[in-house]
C-alpha cells in the first residue's frame, strides 16, 4: 500500500510499504477514506520530537471502513465506517477506567523510552514517534487499529467524512481545552493560536457558555476565520501589544481563562526574543519555544485557569512560576482523552450545533502529502487544514482552496 513516511527533518515521502496485518486479537484493519495533517505532525516534521525513525508512517487523524477484524473485536464488523481516536487505549487499566485514555498504562510498548524523558509513560499514539509506541500512522491507504473494541466510533448515518473526521483529534482537543477552563457565566476566554485546534477551542468555549472569546494570532486569514466562522474577537499580536489589549478588553481583569493552542514552536513578534529561544531550542538547551504559554500565564486574571492543549515535548526556560504561584493560577493540561468525547461531540455534530469541516482549507490525494506538509508548515495559500484522500487521487489531484466546508 501507499503511505506517507517520515524520512528525516523537513522531509516526508509517499512510499510503497507492506499492507498492515492483524498482530493482536483485538486489532482491526481500516481502509482509510480520509486522513488529516495535524499541527502536531509539524513538530515531527521539524525534527523536534525525539525517537523518530526513517520510514515511520505518520498520521493520527483518520477514518475509514473496517476491512478485517481480530477474533476478539466483538462490536465492530467488516464494512463499518469508523473514526479512530489518536490515543491508543486498552480500556482496562486504571487510567482508562478513570477516563484518562491518553495516559493508558498498557498501550505503549516502548513505555520505557517515555519514562526516561518524562518519568512515567502516556499512551501510545498512531504515527507519533517510537517513544509513543512506534505505531504505524494513518496517512496511508490502510492502518492497523489496536484495541479496536475500545477506541473507534461507528458513524452510522450519512454525515460526510469531513464533518466527522476531526473527532479523531482536533475537535475533542479544542473542546477539552475549553472544558478545562471550567467556564462560568460571564467568562471571557482568550485563545492563543487560531489554527484548527484554536478554532475548535473558540467554538467549544462558546458551546460551554463563555461570554466572549478572544483569539490571538498573526495570520490575517486565520484571524478572519476565527471571527467569521467561530465568532471570536481577534488580536493580531504583530500589530498590538497583547497584554495591553487583553487588559483593555476585560476592564483590567484579564481573561478568566487562557488556552494555549500553540505549543512548542511558538513565534515571538520581537525578533531578538524569538531568536533567543529559537537558538536555545536549536542547540537543544530547551525543547520548547514557549512564547504563547508565557504570555497566557502573565495575561490570565488572578485565580484564573491556563489550559494547555498545544503540544510540548520536554523542558522550557523562564517559566513564570512566580506569577503562577503568587496569583493563584491553575494550570490544566493533557493530550486529549478523545475516547471520552466521541459520543457527546458526535451528538453535537448531528444536532447541527457545529460542522467541523469549516476548518478545512485544502483537500489533496495521499500522493500530495509532501506538498501538503510544506504548505501547512509555511502557511502558504492560506492553509489552515489539509485533508488527504488516499483513494481519490483523480478527484483531488490538485488543491482546491476553499473558504469553508465542502
Amino acid at each position, binding site marked *: 500500500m501507499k503511505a506517507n*513516511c517520515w524520512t528525516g527533518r523537513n522531509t516526508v515521502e509517499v512510499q510503497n510499504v507492506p499492507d498492515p496485518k492483524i*498482530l493482536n486479537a483485538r486489532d482491526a484493519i481500516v481502509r482509510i477514506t480520509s486522513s488529516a495533517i495535524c499541527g502536531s505532525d509539524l513538530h515531527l516534521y521539524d525534527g523536534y520530537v525525539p525517537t523518530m525513525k526513517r*520510514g*515511520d508512517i505518520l498520521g493520527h487523524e483518520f477514518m475509514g471502513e473496517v476491512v478485517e477484524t481480530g477474533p476478539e473485536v466483538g462490536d465492530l464488523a467488516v464494512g463499518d465506517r469508523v473514526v479512530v481516536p489518536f490515543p491508543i487505549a486498552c480500556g482496562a*487499566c486504571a487510567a482508562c477506567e478513570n477516563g484518562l485514555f491518553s495516559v493508558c498504562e*498498557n498501550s505503549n*510498548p*516502548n513505555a520505557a523510552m517515555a519514562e526516561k524523558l518524562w518519568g512515567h509513560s502516556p499512551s501510545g499514539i498512531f504515527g507519533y514517534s*517510537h517513544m509513543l509506541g512506534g505505531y504505524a500512522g494513518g496517512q496511508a491507504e490502510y492502518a492497523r487499529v489496536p484495541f479496536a473494541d475500545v477506541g473507534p466510533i461507528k458513524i452510522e448515518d450519512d454525515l460526510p467524512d469531513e464533518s466527522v473526521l476531526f473527532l479523531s483529534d482536533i475537535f475533542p482537543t479544542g473542546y477539552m481545552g475549553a472544558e478545562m477552563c471550567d467556564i462560568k457565566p460571564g467568562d471571557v476566554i482568550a485563545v492563543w493560536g487560531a489554527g484548527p485546534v484554536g478554532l475548535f477551542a473558540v467554538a467549544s468555549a462558546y458551546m460551554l457558555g463563555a461570554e466572549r472569546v478572544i483569539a490571538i494570532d498573526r495570520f490575517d486569514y486565520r484571524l478572519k476565520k476565527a471571527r467569521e466562522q467561530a465568532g471570536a474577537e481577534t488580536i493580531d499580536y504583530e500589530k498590538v501589544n497583547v497584554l495591553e489589549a487583553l487588559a483593555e478588553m476585560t476592564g483590567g481583569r484579564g481573561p478568566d481563562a487562557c488556552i494555549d493552542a500553540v505549543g512548542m514552536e511558538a513565534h515571538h513578534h520581537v525578533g531578538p526574543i524569538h531568536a533567543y529561544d529559537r537558538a536555545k531550542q536549536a542547540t537543544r538547551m530547551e525543547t520548547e519555544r514557549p512564547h504563547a504559554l508565557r504570555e497566557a500565564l502573565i495575561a490570565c486574571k488572578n485565580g484564573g485557569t491556563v489550559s494547555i492543549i498545544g503540544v510540548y515535548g520536554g523542558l522550557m526556560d523562564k517559566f513564570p512560576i512566580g506569577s503562577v504561584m503568587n496569583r493563584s493560577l491553575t494550570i490544566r493540561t493533557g493530550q486529549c482523552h478523545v475516547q471520552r468525547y466521541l459520543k457527546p461531540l458526535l451528538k453535537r455534530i448531528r444536532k447541527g450545533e457545529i460542522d467541523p469541516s469549516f476548518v478545512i482549507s485544502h483537500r489533496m490525494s495521499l500522493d500530495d502529502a509532501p506538498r501538503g506538509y510544506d504548505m501547512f508548515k509555511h502557511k502558504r495559500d492560506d492553509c489552515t487544514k489539509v485533508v488527504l484522500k488516499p483513494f481519490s487521487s483523480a478527484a483531488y489531484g490538485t488543491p482546491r482552496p476553499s473558504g469553508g466546508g465542502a
Partner: protein
Amino acid sequence: MSTQTAPTANGRYVPNLTQPPPNDPLPRALGWASLGLGIPQVASPGGFARAIGVRDDPEARGWTLLVGARELMGAAGILELGQPRPTGWLWARVAGDAMDLGLLLAALRSKPRHRNRLLGATGAVLAITAADVAAAMRMSSHPELHAEPGPLRARAAITVRRPKEEVYRFWRDFENLPSFMEHLDSVEDRGGGVSRWAARAPGGRTVEWDAELVDEHPYDHLSWRSREGSSVENSGSVWFVTAPGGRGTEIHLDLQYDLPGGALGVLIAGLAGEEPRQQVREDLRRAKQILETGMVVRSEGSPDGPMARRRVRQRPAQPLVGSAS
C-alpha cells in the same frame, strides 16, 4: 528469600528495600574534568598540543583530536549515559589514562623542546590516573553497584487493576511465566512444587534447570529457587499487596542470579542489552498487559511488545513483512 520478608503491622508482606547507591561526588568531578579537557582538545588540537609541550604537527594534532573525542565520550558516559552507576565508564577512563601516559612517554623520548611542560603534563595525568583508579574501585566495590560476576539482583514493582487472588493464581502457575518473562522459553510443572525451566542462551543454545518452590503464602507471597547443582543458580521472590483505595494489586518482584560460571550473566547481558532491572520492569509490564488486557501489546516498531532489547533495535513504524512474531 523468605527471610527478607516480614509482615508489617497491618499484615502486608513487603520486601525490604536495599541501600540506595551511594552519592559519590568524585565520578561526577571526573566527568566534568573530561569535558573540560575534551573541549579544547577537539576545538583546537594544535593549541592544546603546544600547551602541553608537544610538537605541533599533523600527527600530534591527530592524536590530540582522538584523545579529545575520547574525553568527550567519557564525559557523556559518566555524567549522563552511565548514571547512576558509571562504573564501566570510570574503568574506561583508567584505560584512557594508560593510553595518554603511553603517548606522553613516547613524546618525552623524542627529545622535545619543552621538556618541562611535558613532564608537568605527565605528572598531571599520573594524578588523574590515581583519582580515576580510586573512583573506579570505589564504585566497583559497593555491593549494589557490583554488576558482575557474582550475585546479580534486579527488582521492580507494578500495579495491576485485578484482584490479588487472580494475580496470585496467574503467577502461581509457573507455566505462565514465559508468557511475560523475556528470557524464559518454557516452564514445566513437575508437581510437588518442582518445575523444569528453560531459557534461551546466545547462539541458539538452551539452558535448563530445576526450580523448587521454597516459600508460599497463598495470595501474598511466593519464593522459588533453582535446585542445588543447577548450571544456573537463581532465585526469585514475588509479593502481592492489595493497593489502597481499590487500586488493584501491587506486584513486587525480586530476582537474584548467582553464577560462579557467569553463564546466565552472559545470557542476561546479551538478551537485555542493558541493566537487568530494566528487563525485569519490562517483564512486569508484559504481565500487567496480559492480566489487564489479555494480551501482550504489539506495535510495528516493537512487534514483540515491551522488551528491553527492542528499545535499542526499533523497526520503523511500518507494517511487518511476513507473519507477525
